[in-house]
């Protein structure tokens, strides 16, 4: 399988020995949607910055479609496009002007650029907006324009850096539909950063979970969840969650992958039955405030790996 993005032992250390990215390595296959998942400060945007040549790596290497981002930055940029986390537009210019500038800078032949702009604006519902200054666009319209702009050059690699941050739920849902549609239609490799678990689960073929600059897990969403078994028991205690967890481990109900956050203990049940597990808790003398069982989520995966609450951290 062709590799679109290769990252090897990539490190970024800022002044003051701030280690933003610590020796990460991964490959993204051609046509794959790959997610970098993690809270703010996990190193996702720094990683994207290094891959898009706006952040200089301290060490390590990365290639986009075979082009080294340090040695051949122009070539690496020529095969990639970015949709940034914040609005990166000239508000005084029209949407059409933005698309045209991108096409010219990425050396799209003028005759082809016109066709691509027409098709993209139709696909992304921008046709009626293109001749208006971008300052008059809504947040969702602007984001669609930025996605259209990134696609004008038909990049081999598309970076979507937190593409739905700051959008209202309806626009966010529309945009997720749009990205899912692109994923099905294009051969472009997409690297998506997000701290929304539902977004990652819906869009990504594989995920890398980043925490404090490191990749702490990398697999398909299904495989990551499968590590926790099919059922999770969530137990809320009134006090001393650590002691309660120790007791449950001693009883054999909780394994090494059980964890406590605040007063909530999460126990992957694996081979245990729900009712047997509940009875075991009563036998161990723990007085629970609440007990629920459910299927594991990516949130549980993240909590197990980092001991932090992803949504809170984000």
């Amino acid at each position, binding site marked *: 399988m062709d590799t679109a993005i290769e990252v090897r032992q990539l490190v970024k250390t800022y002044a003051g020995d701030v280690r933003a990215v610590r020796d990460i390595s991964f490959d993204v296959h051609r046509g794959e949607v790959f997610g970098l998942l993690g809270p703010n400060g996990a190193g996702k945007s720094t990683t994207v910055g290094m891959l898009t*040549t706006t952040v200089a790596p*301290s060490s390590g290497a990365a290639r986009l479609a075979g082009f*080294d981002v340090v*040695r051949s930055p122009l070539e690496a*940029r020529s095969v990639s496009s970015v949709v940034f986390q914040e609005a990166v537009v000239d508000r*005084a*210019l029209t949407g059409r002007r933005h698309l045209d500038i*991108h096409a*010219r*800078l990425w050396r799209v032949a003028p005759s082809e650029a016109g066709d691509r702009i027409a098709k993209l604006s139709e696909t992304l519902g921008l046709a009626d907006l293109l001749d208006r200054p971008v300052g008059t666009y809504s947040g969702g319209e602007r984001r669609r324009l930025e996605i259209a702009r990134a696609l004008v050059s038909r990049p081999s690699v598309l970076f979507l850096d937190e593409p739905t941050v700051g959008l209202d739920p309806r626009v966010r849902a529309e945009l997720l539909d749009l990205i899912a549609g692109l994923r099905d239609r294009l051969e472009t490799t997409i690297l998506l950063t997000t701290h929304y678990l539902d977004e990652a689960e819906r869009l990504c073929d594989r995920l890398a979970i980043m925490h404090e600059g490191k990749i702490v897990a990398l697999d398909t969403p299904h495989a990551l969840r499968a590590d926790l078994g099919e059922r999770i028991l969530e137990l809320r205690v009134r006090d001393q969650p650590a002691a309660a967890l120790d007791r449950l481990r001693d009883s054999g109900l909780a394994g090494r992958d059980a964890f406590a956050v605040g007063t909530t203990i999460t126990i992957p049940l694996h081979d245990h039955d729900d009712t047997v597990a509940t009875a075991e808790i009563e036998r161990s003398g723990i007085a629970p405030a609440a007990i629920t069982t459910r299927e594991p989520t990516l949130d549980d995966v993240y909590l197990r790996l980092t001991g932090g609450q992803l949504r809170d951290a984000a």
Partner: protein
Amino acid sequence: MTTRTLDLGRPLPSLPRNPFGPLATLARRRLHLAVRTPRELLVPMLTPILFALVIAPALKQALHTSSSYEAYVATGTIGLLIPLNTMFAGLSVLVERESGAQRELLAAPVPRPLLVLGNLIVAFAVTALQIAVLIGVARARGIHFDVAGPGLLWFLGGAALFTVGMYGAAESLAARVPSAEEYISRVPAIAIVPWFLAGSLFPITALPTFLTWFARFLPLTHALALARYGLLNDPSGLHNIWRMHSVTEMAALSLLVVGVFAAALTAAGIRLFTRSAVG
């Protein structure tokens, strides 16, 4: 910190590199932005035109000088217009970084110095237009210029190089300061204070001796001396700097000074921009 890179062992295909297409695109984009922001064109002209049309005649009347003083000040105001306009252009670069499309341009497959040069082209063209308007308005107001062919070239060369140098200063400042507020707070020291010392309203020899010497090192003093030589056929500014006999030699030396200023500040502007663009 040393950077260690790993060799992943792939051939490196080359990208065709004709910089003129992207440069034209970048300049056109900057021009569209400037045209859609008329204050960028008009505001820098207000103060110099005020000087040329109101303050210079008022000074002439109050001081009972000859009519050539109006022409002297009108030419001197070019030395205010160029720094003000280029500093305004630099401000728009900073605004672009904070809330515009600069990051998209940084992700584009073009050498980053072209981003600076694209902006420079537009700043240069707008400044040239403003100087032409200033001179045209001054002539319409009855101010007389004494332009001879070769002299005009000294003026054009000096003004062009000084504009390039000042734009380099503006890019350097924009790359160094974190906010528009800090940028604006430094503009008077860079664009206005030197103007008072560079022989804009009176010859530099009228300054205290140590300031006369200081003024001789200001690129603006040389640019203004060349402007007066070119537009008024008045080499006194060059004499005040160099104290030599050959006007051509003095003009060439002043042009060299402004040229070195332009080259150094442009190189600094490009270097600081490209360094600040990569974290």
